[in-house]
């Protein structure tokens, strides 16, 4: 790890003043579960680390029936899982966080950190940059791309968004609050994630001197929701494919549906094709299967990851069936 100076501000205004106006100079420390690893591997070499751990207003989880849920960006994943209101009103968020499994990571990792964590792409982690290039040549298309994107992968980005919570939060219609030198702005979480076109860009709509402060989730009363993740190991592993589904039913008929895939594209991937299959139908295994098929109908797998198309299709199908059976 390269030596850095350390700041531990107690207000968000102070934190923003301590950050740099260009990427790479200063890094934010939230839970530290991944950011310290990136620094140890010299993928991230900031001269200053700004911890958000002492900023009280970034913590907390509050639910109000009229307005919904506010998650402080620095609320830990354990706090999310243990929140009675979240368990009752947004069970899919609890399932998504529980998929992380390791109690140590749940205790340290934050909601904001989950959303802003850097990709797991092994070329990026080995020092080839966010777009995994060596002397201008893209390494992923002909390389070890078994864990890379199957959708939104026309380049130059091929990594997958690693967030556990984002698919479910987007399916629930969440937005985020971002604080910077110009004050607070709100962004729909579906617009927050970006596919970078160059190594200097980031994977989300944050400037180098902005911080994520809150995640706001509208009330979900009357919906049914579930997620389904496919992973190789039961613990200490990222999913290969995931799906989040939120259904509004009218009797047994689907009135509206949100289907969002995770770990299949550089951003969490909404699947309107699947939603179109579901609306107006009664959920059955055949309907869920058809929706899964529609969700991946535009997939363009790389040389070694065609298997992920099937995993994503099944993840959508099973998330739909689970949502229809239970949910909130």
């Amino acid at each position, binding site marked *: 790890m390269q*030596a850095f100076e350390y700041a531990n501000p107690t207000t968000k205004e102070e934190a923003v003043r301590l950050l740099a106006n260009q990427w790479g100079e200063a890094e934010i420390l939230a839970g*530290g*579960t991944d950011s310290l690893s990136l620094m140890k591997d*010299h993928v991230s070499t900031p001269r200053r680390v700004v911890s958000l751990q002492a900023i009280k207003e970034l913590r907390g989880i509050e639910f109000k029936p009229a307005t919904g849920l506010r998650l402080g960006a620095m609320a830990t994943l354990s706090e999310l899982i243990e929140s009675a209101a979240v368990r009752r009103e947004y069970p899919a968020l609890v399932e998504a966080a529980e998929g992380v499994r390791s*109690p140590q*990571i749940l205790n340290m990792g934050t909601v904001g950190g989950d959303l802003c964590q850097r990709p797991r792409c092994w070329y990026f982690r080995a020092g*080839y940059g966010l777009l995994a290039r060596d002397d201008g040549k893209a390494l992923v298309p002909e390389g070890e791309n078994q864990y890379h994107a199957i959708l939104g992968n026309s380049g130059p980005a091929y990594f997958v968004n690693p967030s556990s919570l984002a698919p479910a939060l987007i399916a629930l219609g969440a937005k985020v609050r971002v604080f910077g030198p110009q004050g607070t702005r709100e962004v729909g979480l579906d617009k927050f994630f970006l596919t970078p076109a160059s190594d200097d860009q980031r994977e989300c709509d944050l400037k180098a001197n902005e911080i994520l402060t809150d995640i706001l989730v509208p009330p979900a009363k009357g919906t049914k929701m579930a997620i389904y993740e496919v992973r190789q190991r039961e613990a200490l592993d990222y999913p290969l494919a995931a799906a989040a589904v939120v259904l509004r039913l009218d009797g047994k008929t689907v009135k509206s549906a949100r289907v969002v895939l995770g770990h299949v594209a550089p951003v969490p991937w909404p699947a309107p094709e699947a939603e179109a299959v579901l609306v107006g139908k009664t959920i059955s295994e055949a309907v869920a299967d058809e929706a899964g098929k529609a969700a991946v109908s535009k997939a363009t797998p790389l040389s070694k990851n065609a298997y992920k198309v099937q995993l994503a299709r099944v993840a959508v199908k099973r998330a739909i069936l689970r949502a229809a059976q239970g949910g909130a």
Partner: protein
Amino acid sequence: MSWKKDKVRKPAKPNEALTRRDFLQGAGVAVSGGLLVGREPAIAASPDEKAKVLGPEAVPITLRINGKAQKLTLEPRVTLLDALRNHLDMTGAKKMCDRGTCGACTVILDGKAVYACSVLAIAAQGKEILTIEGLAAGGKLHPVMTAFVEHDAHQCGFCTPGFVMASKAFLDKNPNPLQQDVEEGLGGNLCRCGVYVGVRQAALDAAKARLGEKGGKAHGKV
């Protein structure tokens, strides 16, 4: 690889960093950021901001470990794990992956299991840190330790301190767990010898022993 060419800057030797800073401060010269390095101006450096920034040279740090205050002088980049092992000679927490993945460095911070490799020592100030060294107070084994011995819950032993700490934190929160709870609750630790069955039995037994002491009724065995 691109980082070999331009991204990795050699970490400055601590005394070099100190010297440069001391020189600039001591000389009292109003040096514009641009004169230092090309990268300088991007970071705010107004005096009130600077006052709150520590390092990169070693700074005084106080950690409360196993009930005792320990005063150290560490660079902000030093992890809690390295502080324990390299600066306090407490080598119970093991450095294995050093990337928050294996659990061998697990310690308990304010009652919660964490990876010591993924916490900066400077950020652990003001928190109660419990390490494996503090678990057998006065030479008497903690019930979790006794259960590990009884169930042969180790082979090479390298993951054992981390598993013991993770088990203690888990049982403090889940005093009467089912088998499945144990499997999930210890999901943050790896053992390459494969002693998971022994570890899980040990955790269940430790819970039973504790409940027995308190007159409670434990869930069935494995």
